[in-house]
């Protein structure tokens, strides 16, 4: 079996003995003695473990990821930078490091290496360093000491200095050009496969019917990171080129089964800006650089953020196996609490989202305790079409309201055909209560979920009905 080959802070590494289910964080800290990256939570929420990775298919730039959630073979063929690798050989700090020092952006310092790496990835992306972009870039990093102001200032300060590592990703990847994509890596009785073709994937699924598919591993990685046990066999979809396809057809947008949130965003932005805005609140950049749309569907969580959107949009999944392909609406694919209709040997080949017709609109809302990187209490997604002030078409799907994300059939039936104005919504609370019997849990009570879900229909009316929409919080 092949060894893992990657670049670590510019040094070529051939790893031949570590367990395939060891996390990258444990590997860096324990095997490589690079202790800059920290374990703050082991669940991809605090960002203290953030490192930067450049993949051959990733556009020659370093991107931030949570090393605590990644299995070591996920960096095979990639270039990795940790906080130890940023300073120049003469010790000169990288501008993001220097800026953090100058703005007094460190106090206890435990979160700092993670921030440094998130800031580096932000710097590599070349975005304008305004507040909105900075918050987006830092949403995956928690600091408990500073109150963030000096860190945000440091992002702006660093943006003004040239990035000495600007060409580094391209150089590093060039040095890896001899490493073929994909791998089968078996050590300590555990295996990680990254097949290079659909056929290889079929074969591996046949040989390992119990093996979970790994898209980005942001859910599966928790097993290794928190439960301290990885599955004996893991099959990654990331090296199958076909599953990375993104097609913007005249009627349908198609996202391959291995497309990450980050890769999907530009295309979503153009057709479904409200969906894209919501996707930007899923996890953090670290998570969105790894996690896939297909993974969000396949885990079938009642609070999976994309599901209500895909359901309201009438999206389908293309399911593929050696026997052939079939198409299912996302709505029917989800069969129960964390259950899907995925059959043995099948994988999600693609997600197809019908583009909006003339006059159709799509709006999605997310409610959570914190704006960024929080699991939703309620997600509401609507596709609607107005005809002379009347709701001609109305699809409403909610997450967080039942064991699965699903449509609100009573609400849809009652509102369709009504004049789309405030007075038409007097019974919306009762309609929502007919559709859903949510539960009390850590994110919200049933009472709040019902009330807020009904009010989101009211918000929708205010924003899409006749007359000027009143200002929302996001406008402030």
């Amino acid at each position, binding site marked *: 079996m092949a060894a893992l080959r990657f670049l670590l802070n510019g040094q070529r590494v051939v790893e031949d003995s570590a367990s395939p289910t060891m996390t990258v964080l444990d590997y860096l800290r324990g095997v490589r003695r690079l202790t800059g990256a920290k374990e703050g939570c082991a669940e991809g929420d605090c960002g203290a473990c953030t490192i930067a990775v450049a993949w051959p298919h990733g556009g020659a730039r370093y991107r931030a990821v949570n090393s605590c959630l990644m299995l070591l073979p996920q960096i095979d063929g990639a270039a990795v930078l940790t906080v130890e690798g940023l300073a120049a050989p003469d010790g000169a700090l990288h501008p993001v490091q220097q800026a953090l020092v100058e703005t007094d952006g460190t106090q206890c*310092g435990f979160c700092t290496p993670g921030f440094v790496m998130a800031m580096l990835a932000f710097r590599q992306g070349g975005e304008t360093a305004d507040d909105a972009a900075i918050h987006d870039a830092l949403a995956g990093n*928690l600091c408990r000491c500073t109150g963030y102001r000096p860190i945000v200032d440091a992002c702006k300060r660093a943006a003004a200095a040239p990035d000495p590592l600007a060409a580094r990703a391209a150089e590093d990847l060039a040095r890896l050009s001899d490493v073929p994509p994909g791998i089968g890596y078996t050590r300590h009785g555990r295996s990680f496969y990254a097949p290079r073709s659909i056929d290889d994937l079929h074969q591996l699924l046949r040989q390992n019917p119990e093996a979970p598919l790994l898209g980005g591993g942001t859910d599966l990685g928790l097993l290794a990171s928190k439960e301290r046990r990885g599955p004996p066999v893991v099959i990654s979809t990331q090296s199958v080129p076909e599953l990375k396809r993104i097609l913007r057809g005249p009627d349908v947008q198609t996202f391959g089964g291995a497309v990450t949130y980050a890769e999907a965003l530009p295309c979503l932005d153009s057709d479904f800006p409200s969906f894209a805005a919501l996707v930007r609140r899923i996890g953090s950049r670290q998570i969105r650089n790894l996690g896939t749309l297909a993974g969000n569907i396949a885990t079938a969580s009642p609070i999976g953020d994309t599901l209500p959107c895909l359901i309201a949009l009438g999206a389908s999944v293309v399911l593929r196996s050696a026997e052939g392909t079939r198409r299912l609406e996302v709505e029917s694919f989800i069969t129960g609490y964390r259950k899907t209709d995925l059959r043995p040997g099948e994988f999600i080949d693609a997600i197809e989202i019908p583009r909006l017709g003339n006059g159709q609109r799509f709006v999605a809302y997310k409610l959570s305790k914190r704006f960024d990187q929080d699991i939703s209490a309620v997600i509401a997604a609507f596709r609607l079409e107005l005809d002379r002030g009347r709701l001609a078409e109305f699809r409403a799907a909610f997450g967080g309201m039942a064991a699965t994300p699903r449509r609100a059939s009573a609400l849809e039936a009652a509102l369709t055909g009504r004049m789309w104005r405030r007075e038409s919504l007097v019974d919306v609370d009762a309609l929502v209560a007919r559709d859903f019997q949510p539960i009390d849990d850590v994110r919200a009570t049933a009472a709040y979920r019902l009330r807020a879900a009904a009010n989101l229909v009211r918000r929708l009316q205010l924003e899409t009905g006749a007359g000027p929409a009143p200002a929302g919080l996001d406008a402030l």
Partner: protein
Amino acid sequence: MTAAPAHRIKGGVQSPVRHESAIGHVTGSALYLDDVPTVPGTLEAALVLSPHAHARIASVDFARALAAPGVRAAIAAGDIPGRNDIAPILKGEPALADGVAEYVGHPVAAIAADTLDQARAAAKRVEIAYEVLPPVLTIEEALERGLLVAPEQKIERGDVGPALDAAPLRLAGEARCGGQDHFYLEGQIALAVPGEERDMQVFSSTQHPTEVQHGVAHLLGLPFNAVTVDVRRMGGAFGGKESQATIIAGIAALLAWKTRRPVKLRLARDDDMQATGKRHPFLIRYEVGFDPEGRIQALDMLYAANAGNVADLSPAVIARALCHADNCYFLPNVRLRGLACKTNTVSNTAFRGFGGPQGMFGIEAVIDAVARHLRLPLETVRQRNFYGIGRNDTTPYGMKVEDNIIERVMAELDGAVDLARWRSEIDAFNRANPVVKKGLATMPVKFGISFNLTTLNQAGALVHVYTDGSVHLNHGGTEMGQGLFVKIAQVVAEAFQIDVEHVRVSATSTGKVPNTSATAASSGTDMNGMAALDAAGRIKARMAEVAAAHFGVPAGEIVFADNRVFAGNKSLAFAELAEMCWRRRVSLSSTGYYRTPKIHWDGQAGKGRPFYYFVYGAAACEVAIDTLTGEMRTLRAELVQDCGRSINPAIDLGQTEGAFVQGLGWLTTEELWWDRAGRLGTHGPSTYKIPGSRDVPPVFNVRLLPDAPNREDTVFRSKAIGEPPLMLAIAVWLAARDAVASLGDHRLAPKLDAPMTPERILAAVDDMKARSA
């Protein structure tokens, strides 16, 4: 007389020197305990936590766990050689549950194994038979059943009953604030290394090395001199590593004792959040009598805290809450009662502010209610109740407020932001916007500095000058990110008049400075700075004599300045003098000691002068709420913070901003949620939401109050900074109340407790709409 240059040294007091580990932080080379390489043979440990809120432990069976790969030892309460008691104030608080588990997450047993994974896997194989008992989970239940972890505390002045009866107006109400997890980014961790004979060296992420030393000694049945505790730095603490670190270090030491091997115990975040204490949630009930101008004539308040399963530091937290129930207001007739309620939840503990935030939260609810009732601005009612100067200046506990500058601080704030204009902008916005409503509120703060318990107000330091002129500094305070080390280094640099780069602060150790107090109560710089100054002063006096002899002048004419020592126009480099002292056999090492003057406290009577001085501050905050969903944004925060004559304005700015945002989290997104079985549902950052960068107000200005030297003789006339600014965030709560109140034309007091999740805000909105319809 002397020709010493006026040239300033680099990094003396009052200069914004950066954190001494800043470069280490940004390069990842600053070592935290888990980063330090351990010797081969070091074991890793894991805890076995109770899954029940209340249960008798019938039996603990380690057979399956001990048979698991790599396992070297397993311990439960019965395996403790010494006394299973680590109580910081009272008695009877076991490190490992003894006979009965009292909360979900209570450590019952522990495992040591060759690897962390082996230890954690084996912990799941420990078989414990529980007889489940009914739990008490809420403050209300505990109040009803009279369950307390410590006796009631009371502070009383005048006769509150008749005064209430005599008051022209009267209101009663209730307010609640939630707890808060510290969420230090570095979780609890300790490494215990057994030495020869009975020695035990403990490396602990602790704010209180001495308490860890005592706890470990008690558990192992050792004298204190057998246990040495070291801590270089913590990855955040905020009070969470004051008493709680002893549990972790104690268990690591027990396992090390049993195996005779070094043992590291690092908690997974979920275990950390379930097993260790948090900020106390409070239920506050009040009855207030006042006149038509809003002057409070009588106030009767009950502060009931959820203390959790044992007392821990709760009695002291309650005392501080009661001592801050006045905030800046003169309360002529007052009765403040504090109850530490016993429940089957994790024992709550110290957290930045230590009861002060909850104390102020209560009185601000009262002021808010009075102001709404009279339809007066909050600021007007406050101003009519502020402590006076020379009159109405005695606190309920009998301390005269001698340093009152609250009106100056408020004026400074108003001058900077023009509150009246700001208010009119808010009102105009609200008239024009049906869905989103804005609110604005201010918050004055007066926070007492010193540990309530007088004994704790002492500190030690140890200073060595080496013959190359470099200085080694050690003191009893610990570095948790707050910048204590650099501040004390500045103090010593100033004393010797050498550049701060020549002063190196070393890891805190019970072997260097003994019998220390926790680095807590914002007192780190005040106390350790003075102790270090004392040590430096003693060495300096000896050096001056040597210099005087060398130059042939009286010692009184020797001047230390600009890295040199002067006698008139002759001088020596500081390092040359150090070398000279050594040659002449003069000691260049000294301990230093400090005890805070003037203070005394009778906890029984609730009287005394517990605080050396007060720190003041004021904030104004603007928020916006969505009345359809309850979502909220904090849009603007303007702060004025008193730091006395700041030793390090950069550090003090960072403390102010950080404390404010932490207070903002406490009052907004940080909700601790337990299910009906007493299981904490919010035990990781995926469910427990501390503020992120976007939650910080986009307009956020902090002004350190200029020209405000401490009137007391503190270290270079500075003031403490760690905790006071946290309470400025109460302005955010009051501003959200103001936004909700706008729906009822500001006539009614909103029913809005903290934390202000979208859910609580939406309920308050709907309630306000219903009541004002």
